[in-house]
């Protein structure tokens, strides 16, 4: 079996993962610090017969991605804060029409133009709540280059499996940092492709969901002529004003993700068994957290770490279980406090929640974390 080692930056690892997952369409618009993903796919996609297009803006980018996806292509875009904000309306469109796609957001400091080359984790809540109306989607957050590779593959798999937009929340540090990773053989990987209808076209109803609540959308051009609309629709796909059908659709597109939570959740727990303090950290911040927790142990403090890899849906049950055992959960994030609210909600008052926040365009260092650990340990 061929084992290939490569020294890659996060953005490049994302590209390798996407190609491994079978990406065949990329539509994007240049934006720091995600641009390497577009640049790399511009040169790589034609080699695999795939299509790359640089659109006129980020709205056009996600629109093109969704159009391509309807033909059956595994489609993605990559952007950063300002572009991610522009995409929000069509992320909602993808949710209600159940068109799978992967959106990579290499987070930079905001708001607005903010700090294009500075890392931040300021889009955590926007990823979940940025578009209007009740919707649900999936967001993953890698902590290393290797994880970026595997998370990207997972993003495509989840998008295809749940017919939903999946967001990869990187940050500038993960996007530009270089690490050595082993590129596996594609045969070792599980690659999921979306379902296709098996019944004859005259019996086909695009939005009659399967037992998991997931729509089965035929690829355009394959003989199943159906209607896709961002309006509230019934299982035929056509618009309806019926309150019952409206409620049914809104609930289904939300609960198909909620109900699959146990399967979707991915997190890493280190030294949590006897811990009195848990550091909750994600993305590049998790790297500093692991280091600090180790140092704290050396100094005799019972410190563990909890690193969510799936951000949305949020792992509230796992956090509640920890909260029952520990005194303090310390949330570290490169923003003024976003996921800390989710943690507080999950903890239900069973433990003290502390926040270490940093929004200066610098990453959170192990030193920053140690200082705070010492401060709040007792």
């Amino acid at each position: 079996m061929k084992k290939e080692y490569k020294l890659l930056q996060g953005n490049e690892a994302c590209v390798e993962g996407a190609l491994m997952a079978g990406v065949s369409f990329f539509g994007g618009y240049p934006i720091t610090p995600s641009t390497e993903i577009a640049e790399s796919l511009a040169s790589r996609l034609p080699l695999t017969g795939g299509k790359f297009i640089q659109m006129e803006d980020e709205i056009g980018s996600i629109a093109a991605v969704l159009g391509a996806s309807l033909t059956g292509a595994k489609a993605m875009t990559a952007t950063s804060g300002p572009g991610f904000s522009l995409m929000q309306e069509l992320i909602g469109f993808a949710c209600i029409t159940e068109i799978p796609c992967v959106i990579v957001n290499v987070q930079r400091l905001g708001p607005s133009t903010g700090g294009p080359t500075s890392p931040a984790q300021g889009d955590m809540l926007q990823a979940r709540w940025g578009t209007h109306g009740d919707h649900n989607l999936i967001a993953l957050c890698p902590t290393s280059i290797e994880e970026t590779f595997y998370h990207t593959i997972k993003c495509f798999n989840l998008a295809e499996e749940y017919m939903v937009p999946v967001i990869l929340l990187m940050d500038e540090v993960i996007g530009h940092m270089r690490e050595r990773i082993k590129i596996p053989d594609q045969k070792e990987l599980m690659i999921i492709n979306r379902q296709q209808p098996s019944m004859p076209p005259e019996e086909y109803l695009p939005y009659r969901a399967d037992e998991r609540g997931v729509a089965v959308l035929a690829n355009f051009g394959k003989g199943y002529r159906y209607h896709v609309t961002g309006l509230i629709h019934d299982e035929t796909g056509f618009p309806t004003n019926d309150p019952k059908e409206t409620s049914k659709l809104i609930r289904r597109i939300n609960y198909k993700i909620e109900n699959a939570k146990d399967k979707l959740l991915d997190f890493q727990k280190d030294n949590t068994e006897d811990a009195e303090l848990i550091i909750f950290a994600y993305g590049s911040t998790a790297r500093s957290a692991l280091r600090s927790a180790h140092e704290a142990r050396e100094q005799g403090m019972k410190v563990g770490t909890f690193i969510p890899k799936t951000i949305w849906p949020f792992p509230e049950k796992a956090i509640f279980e920890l909260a029952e055992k520990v005194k303090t959960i310390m949330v570290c994030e490169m923003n003024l406090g976003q996921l800390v609210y989710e943690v507080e909600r999950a903890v239900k008052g069973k433990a003290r929640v502390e926040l270490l926040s940093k929004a200066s365009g610098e990453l959170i260092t192990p030193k920053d974390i140690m200082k705070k650990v010492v401060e709040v340990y007792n």
Partner: protein
Amino acid sequence: MAIKEKSGIKKYLRLNKFPHIWCGGCGNGIVLRGILQGIDDLGLEQNKIVMISGIGCSSRMPGYVDFNTLHTAHGRAIAFATGVKLAKPDLHVIIITGDGDCAAIGGNHLIHAARRNIDLTVVILNNSIYGMTSGQYSPLTPYGSFATTAPYGNIEQSFDLCELVSSAGATYIARSTTYHAMQIPKLIAAGIENSGFSFIEIILHCHTYYGRKNKIGGPVEMMEWQKSHAVPISKKGSNIDMTGKFYIGELKKTRSPEYCKTYDELISATQRRKES
């Protein structure tokens, strides 16, 4: 021929969705008929047609036709269509859009799709008003006209979309009106057949909002206005006073490399280079 006509375009309709939602006398239905007639004349396979629209009155059209249909967000039809066409170039992609959808919120996508000369057929139904939201002025509302958001008369200038897409790089441009309904199928067919970006503007009447606000009258009066203001392009150069008038017919027919075909050549070239 005649028997074929009786059922001719009916096979393209989602019959259980009729009668349609448009107002009595609305020009949208006339354009719908013209488009379907054009498609029927070409004998295209239904499974290979994708009709994509944005938001607005005219953008409800895809719901009525038995193709692969996609009703997108406001202004974004052409961008979605770009993705569909590039991913599957063997599909015929037709975009239905209105003057607000296409010229205002979607203006940027229009320019750049024309610039790429990607093989899309854009049919813009220009009724000079936002009908779905009940009568606000659009970028194509004439100066001085009234609208709910131009209660003292429109103080903005409108512009010629056909000239815009022409300078952007569209290779087929035509214009007609709902009065000239007999001409529409031919223009649609020619637009679909053109390998490149095709743009067909249909001037149509919205008597419910534009007609009423501007005291023009009903559908017939508005179609009479079209008749008296449309000048066949063949008469260009003659001594006709064009003030307030517009040309109809095939305004531009040219050739330039089509985007998807060029991309496919690029794929072949890169793969050959990889092999050698």
